[in-house]
């Protein structure tokens, strides 16, 4: 795998956790109940911590002196490599937790594979992150089941969230040249290979949640290649990057 490809691969991992971490942190202080507010903030913190490891390594691989902070705060939309799913707005609490579940399930399977990576640095970051993600998945699964199989109103909202977000799931499993290079080098798994496992597990959870996965296989794409993000990412970055843009180099 060329350093350029590896850099892109690491940006994908780090941008997923960065964008979802920031999105989740938007709930801080506004959660539906105190315990959920704290849980959301803790999840965001774990994801930002993982971002520091992924983007820190990405900067080293790139060898142009960019730190994790530089990569997070000083790139524009077209340089982000996260999947479209994680940049989608929070919506209501149910929609946020549906997005979290759909991502956590992939994240958990992905990290389990990355622990076997031929790149020792990737393997050790995956080992660390996977303990945290297992915990996220446990919580988001319980919440999706609880709200899906809850009151008529919570069920209606969770089905609406699944209908809205499911078309963004497919992108996680569509391989491209960079994925192929990672597979060839033993660095990462074939995304399509994880897809079948994901679907089985998602079916099982949605059955318990009494929710129906949409039958239309259409998938939005363009996030992980950077070809076409949704309009939401730019708005999110405007807020996330504001301080470094307005006061370049500010520290405390």
């Amino acid at each position, binding site marked *: 795998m060329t350093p350029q490809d590896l850099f892109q691969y690491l940006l994908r991992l780090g941008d997923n956790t960065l964008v979802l971490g920031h999105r989740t942190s938007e709930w801080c202080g506004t959660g539906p109940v105190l*315990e*959920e507010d*704290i*849980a959301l*903030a*803790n*999840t965001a*913190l*774990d*994801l*930002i*911590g*993982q971002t*520091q*490891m992924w983007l820190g390594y990405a900067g080293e691989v790139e060898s142009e002196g960019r730190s994790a902070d530089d990569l997070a705060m000083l790139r524009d939309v077209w340089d982000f490599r996260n999947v479209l799913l994680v940049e989608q707005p929070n919506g209501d609490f149910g929609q946020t937790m549906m997005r979290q579940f759909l991502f956590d399930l992939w994240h958990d399977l992905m990290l389990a594979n990355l622990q076997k990576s031929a790149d020792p640095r990737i*393997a*050790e*970051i995956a*080992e*660390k*992150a996977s*303990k*945290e993600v297992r*915990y996220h998945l*446990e*919580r988001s699964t319980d919440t999706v089941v609880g709200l899906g199989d809850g009151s008529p109103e919570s069920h209606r909202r969770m089905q609406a969230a699944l209908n809205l977000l499911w078309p963004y799931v497919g992108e996680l499993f569509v391989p491209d040249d960079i994925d192929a290079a990672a597979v060839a080098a033993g660095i990462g798994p074939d995304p399509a290979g994880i897809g079948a496992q994901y679907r089985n597990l998602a079916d099982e959870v949605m059955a318990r949640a009494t929710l129906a996965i949409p039958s239309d296989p259409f998938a939005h794409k363009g996030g992980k290649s950077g070809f076409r993000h949704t309009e939401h990412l730019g708005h999110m970055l405007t807020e996330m990057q504001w301080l470094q843009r307005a006061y370049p180099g500010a520290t405390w």
Partner: protein
Amino acid sequence: MVKTQPSIAEIWTWLDAVPDPEIPVVSVVDLGIVRGVAREGGKIVVTITPTYSGCPATSVISFEVERALREKGLEDVELRRQLSPAWTTDWIARKGRDKLEEYGIAPPSPAGGPERCPRCGERDLERISQFGSTPCKAQWRCKSCLEPFDYFKCI
């Protein structure tokens, strides 16, 4: 001036006096955050592992460890971060577990929840939330004395 070099065991004792910034009743050694102390030439290398990757206390811990060793007169100190093997609550020493419980935090248990209420000792407990005031804790409640308490998550 001739300085005598402290032994590695002595340095461990000094580190055992550095409190965790979030839970000051236990030391960074009690929590298993310090993974190794070694002498490399004239330099002392302390290996530290983060509990949670986003835990804001990690940088404070590194700062406090370095300061503690400098205060003891060690000048050449290097801190190394180690991710693998990933930190686990199994590394919390017996002494650390006892101190946590005494402080009102139920120590981690492989059963996935606290063994007993750290206040009254009863075992009829319920989980309030998987997460708590710091990344390493969850919130539980004792149904006997009705008091909520922190539980140190088992990972």
